[in-house]
């Protein structure tokens, strides 16, 4: 039993990291530019299909295919920012509506390209690592490592670099930041590129674990949103922790309780935490 629970705790943490990378994107875009990009799941979908196309159809080795896939997602993000999102700054709900529109556009576009029938990439790194009764697929461990590395790197980069300081200055007070000489539109673009690129990476990693379908983005953006809120909007490490907590609770929860309620376990904990820390675990009051 302990083995079962331990195994699912680990596994949940890995799945949670996937939520975390989306959460990071949400936190960055909202925390820094005040834009709600609820369509991040679609950029994840783009990254996933791009990886599939390049690695499976194009015959590139998977690690090589990931990079252009992220770039493609980021490019899509850049365009949608230029075309739509930048007009929804600090207008949470209009951002939400634009996202709804984008979701419908991207989903249908990928249906035109890839059809509704799911596709599955060749197995990049098959087999599992066995520790006693616990079996963890090797690829999952790789995915986990990559995501944690990326999020931690982002954390330090934003804490140390000019861009980082600029972004937080911007988040605090855009006008002042403008005076300080932070070129805000450029910053906005940078954040948008990065967050959608991250989503693309999330998708690329996703593609190595699960089968793909055009509607895949929906679930993850919700989980990402929950994770971001749980960790506290604006907190980078918070997004990782939020995701991991969510994943672990879902995993362990469905060991002891019916699987049909899996999503409810995460939500219940989310609510409970928000009541005691209204701005998330790591969010500042």
């Amino acid at each position, binding site marked *: 039993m302990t083995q*079962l629970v331990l195994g699912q705790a680990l596994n949940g943490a890995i799945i949670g990291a996937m939520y975390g990378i989306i959460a990071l994107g949400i936190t960055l875009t909202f925390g820094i530019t005040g834009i709600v990009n609820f369509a991040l799941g679609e950029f994840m979908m783009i990254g996933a299909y791009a990886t599939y196309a390049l690695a499976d159809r194009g015959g590139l080795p998977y690690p090589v295919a990931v990079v252009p896939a992220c770039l493609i997602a980021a490019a899509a993000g850049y365009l949608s920012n230029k075309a739509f999102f930048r007009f929804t700054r600090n207008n949470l709900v209009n951002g939400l509506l634009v996202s709804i529109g984008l979701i419908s556009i991207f989903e249908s576009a990928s249906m035109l390209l890839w059809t509704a029938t799911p596709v*599955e990439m060749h197995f990049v790194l098959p087999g599992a690592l066995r520790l006693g009764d616990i079996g963890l697929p090797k690829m999952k461990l790789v995915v986990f490592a990559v995501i944690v590395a990326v999020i931690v790197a982002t954390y330090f980069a934003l804490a140390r670099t000019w861009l980082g300081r600029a972004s937080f200055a911007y988040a605090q007070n855009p006008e002042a930041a403008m005076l300080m000489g932070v070129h805000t539109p450029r910053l906005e673009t940078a954040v948008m590129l990065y967050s959608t690129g991250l989503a693309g990476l999330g998708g690329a990693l996703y593609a190595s674990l699960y*089968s793909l379908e055009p*509607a895949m983005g929906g679930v993850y953006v919700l989980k990402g949103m929950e994770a971001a809120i749980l960790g506290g909007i604006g907190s980078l490490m918070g997004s990782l922790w939020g995701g991991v907590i969510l994943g672990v609770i879902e995993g362990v929860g*469905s060991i002891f309780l019916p*699987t*049909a309620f899996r999503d409810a376990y995460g939500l219940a904990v989310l609510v409970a935490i928000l009541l005691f820390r209204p701005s998330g675990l790591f969010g500042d009051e």
Partner: protein
Amino acid sequence: MITVRSLVIALTILVLGPLSANAQDVVKIGQIEAQTGANAIYGWMSSQGTALAVDEINKGGGFKVGNKTYKIQLIALDTRGEPKEATVQLKRLVEVDGAKYIFGPFLSNVFLAVRPYAGEFNGKLLMWGGATRIHDYVGTPGHEFLMRTWNWDAGKNGFGELMVDNLVKTTGAKKIAMLFQNDQGGKVLEDIYVPMFKAKGIEYRLDYFEPGTKDFSAVLAKIAAWKPDFLFPSYADSYLYDIVRQATESGQLTKFFLVRGSLGPGLKNKDGIGEYMVYVPKYFEEAEKKDPKVAKFIKSYKDFYKRDFPYDQAPLCSASCYDHVYMLVEAMKKAGTVDDPAAVRKALMSMTYDGMWRIRFDEKGEAVFNFDVVRLKKGGALEVTHINPN
């Protein structure tokens, strides 16, 4: 370009009242399927099969009934899987376009929402649906407009009993773990198979998962701890691939039993699986070589859609709808009318169509046709059994 065509037509008929659709020499077939959205797989494929058949027939100059040659006009609408959309669309098809033959729906929630309206046109309408829940209504009084185009696990013509017998006889399975998505399909499978397992004294457990789940490791681990002989997973490909992969990857569960679903996941993980027993309406990879009709179908599919042929679960929808269009045409010829669905239905009930499948309808109006049972062994060794209930 937003054409307000439908609205305009509607406005015109307001004055005249619904047109009696003696549309010159065109037979209108309406279709309500989810072509986009989360549950689009079935609807999308079936609408492809229909479109393909209609295109072939029209290119071939249409078909003759009596001394008149008819072409088919297919009006395929996308319900997005939303009952609300579908209700409006069906009304449009019947009232504005005057279609008397409706293909679809494949989704039970959509069917249940459009049923009352369609019922108002009982005898003046023929609805070819695949939805599981049509089974509860087809052949009952007031539902003579229904034809169930899909085969059924339960009942004397069904394949469920046969599959389970087969399983028990050949493998001596005693413990079966079911893992279904929590939706109509899953619930219906429970209603059918739980009693069967009980009757056969098979020990079973049943877990449901939220539609949209991609990672099953938790529930699979839970199931593995129960040590079943076979895992009986949910059928939609979007889950099947992940379930089979994750179950075999961790080496916990390697024997699978599927009554709906496709061979693809098994083949993909052929080195991981112990055994993979699946019901398939047709094992296309094999049939393509043996049956010219199938070969022709696959070829024209590729030409028409400029796309590889998806050999997986999907073809069964497209192929069967493809056959159904031809079958409908045959029935019209036999009945000698295109305007009287009741007569056409009578003709259908008394005929057997010999297409890619041998299809006939039982007394209730449910399709009965031949299917294959495929057993896949570790390493990819295949054993196909052809079964023909006709």
